[in-house]
């Protein structure tokens, strides 16, 4: 199925298109954060403690307008959200990519090798899947220590099992089809059969799981940051921002938690909606 056909069908679902627009907006905002944000929230010199906990729309000590207010350290919330999006999306995408690579390779190997190797790999994957992702990543982070790279590793390791399971399922089905038998019977080298014949036919379910897992990774990272694990407080992601403003929720300074929260929820919901549409379109029943 070509990209053109795919897009034409995607266009028909207005909700999905709106969600995709939101996702693209978030990505653009994240990428262009240094240009769009009125303030660099990581630059301690640009933050004025006297402007702390200002409500949205207020004017600061140097005349700048805080669109969404400030947090407890005097950071402009709008800038913090943009930079926070950057971290959230960046980490989720990076962790997701690594998880896909590790998981797909394992799944493909297991499906192709069969026998003991398959059993060993898949039992490891099953073991991994029985542990909740959040718990797994917390344990890993405790071992790795805090930091962006450590967070990416922890998330990737917590998530690869889904991809391994999906890829193994799809590859097993394809492995037993006649065209794979035909390719092996030519005989074509095993590596070529796996990469050129089996893998391309396993992509649709993988793409679907990947989109869902990205949303899950975003939520996972936010949860970890909310709990104070993973990222240093000087480079706040959306989760950290929510955590920072938590104590002020009931004292009337709702904006410190709520706006980052809204941003996070909107992002996750949009990614999920796009993933839903992608899944429906790639449904094998509709394929020839």
């Amino acid at each position, binding site marked *: 199925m070509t990209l053109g056909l795919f897009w034409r069908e995607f266009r028909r679902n207005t909700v999905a298109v709106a969600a995709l627009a939101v996702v693209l907006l978030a990505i653009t905002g994240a990428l262009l954060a240094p240009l769009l944000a009125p303030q660099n929230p990581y630059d301690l010199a640009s933050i004025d403690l006297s402007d702390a906990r200002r409500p949205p729309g207020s004017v600061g000590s140097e005349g700048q307008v805080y669109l969404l207010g400030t947090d407890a350290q005097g950071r402009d919330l709008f800038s913090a959200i943009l930079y926070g999006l950057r971290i959230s999306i960046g980490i989720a995408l990076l962790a997701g990519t690594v998880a896909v690579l590790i998981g797909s390779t394992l799944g493909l190997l297991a499906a192709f090798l069969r*026998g003991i190797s398959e059993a060993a790999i898949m039992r490891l994957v099953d073991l991994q899947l029985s542990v909740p992702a959040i718990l797994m990543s917390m344990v890993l982070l405790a071992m790795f220590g805090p930091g962006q790279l450590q967070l990416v590793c922890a998330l990737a390791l917590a998530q690869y099992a889904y991809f391994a399971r999906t890829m193994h399922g799809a590859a097993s089905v394809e492995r037993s*089809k*006649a*065209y794979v*038998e*035909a*390719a*092996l*019977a*030519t*005989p*074509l*080298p095993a590596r*070529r059969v796996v990469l*050129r*014949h089996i893998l*391309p*036919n396993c992509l649709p379910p993988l793409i679907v799981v990947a989109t869902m897992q990205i949303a899950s990774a975003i939520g996972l990272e936010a949860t970890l940051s909310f709990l104070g694990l993973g990222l240093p407080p000087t480079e706040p992601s959306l989760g950290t921002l929510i955590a920072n403003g938590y104590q002020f929720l009931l004292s009337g300074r709702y904006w410190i938690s709520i706006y980052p929260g809204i941003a996070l929820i909107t992002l996750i919901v949009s990614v999920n909606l796009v993933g839903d549409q992608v899944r429906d379109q790639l449904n094998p029943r509709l*394929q*020839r």
Partner: protein
Amino acid sequence: MSEVLAEIRAVSRHFEAPPALTDWLLRMAGRAKPKRRLQAVSDVSLQIARGEALGLVGESGCGKSTLGRMIAGILAPSQGEVFVEGKPVLAPSGRKLTTRVQMVFQDPFTSLNPRLRVGEQIGEGPLAHGLVARADLPTYISRWLGAVGLRPEHASRYPHQFSGGQRQRVAIARALAMQPAVLVCDEPVASLDVSVQAQIINLLLSLKRDLGLTMLFISHDLGVVRHLCDRIAVMYLGRIVEIGDAEAVCTSPRHPYTRALLGCRPRLNLDGAPQSTPPIVGELPSAFDPPAGCPFSSRCANVGSLCRDQAPSLRLNEPRRQVACYYPV
């Protein structure tokens, strides 16, 4: 006597359930259960001469597909060996050593990669094995597409853009592009409409005539096999029960199963009067638990005292005919 291109020597194949954790545990506890074994093919020996079309006929579960796969080098025999052009088809490790035997599969819908263009699938093998230079590949592919009745522009299309009959042509082209000495066809027309079956049968006939193709044609349909093949081998529960010239086997069968099978075929009844085709009695025994002695003994009208003791081996009945029966018809 024509040169023998494919030789199958005393080939057997059995299947066992793959090892499960429970079996291993039971074995440790000293209570190992005997494994259920399915004897798919028992002690089959065949020779296919150059330019000959040998038909392999039988019903489901007789082992013809398994035998076909062993001859094509897809499956390793449990015992015995397969030789093509005098060389073994498989290495002891199970790796296929030769490209001189190729296979055409039954289902044209799953035997082609849905995501690769048809031309790429035809050209992939020959390129990988040095049968054609990369520069000459498009011409090579066009040549084989033409040989099966398709046009050069079809090379850039995907399988789903073809009909079932056309896909089967592509599968045949893919196998032939490897320039095999022996072509194994596993029920190539079974999934096709009647009018399309005739087209593919014609194609195979012309390929046999023009290219001198040596073929093993596997089918459950005696009519198709009779039309296409020079010799027919009839299989039942993993054994060859009769082998001989196609016409002779179909007009004067010597094994009771062959005769019953021929009698079961619904014939086109132009009179419209309901015809009662004499059925074989009984059901096919399970391949896990075949009858002792002759596999057909449980259903044979001619069964005698020798039949239940030991399975009869193929013995010469008349020149060019072998029958595995103590009391041939």
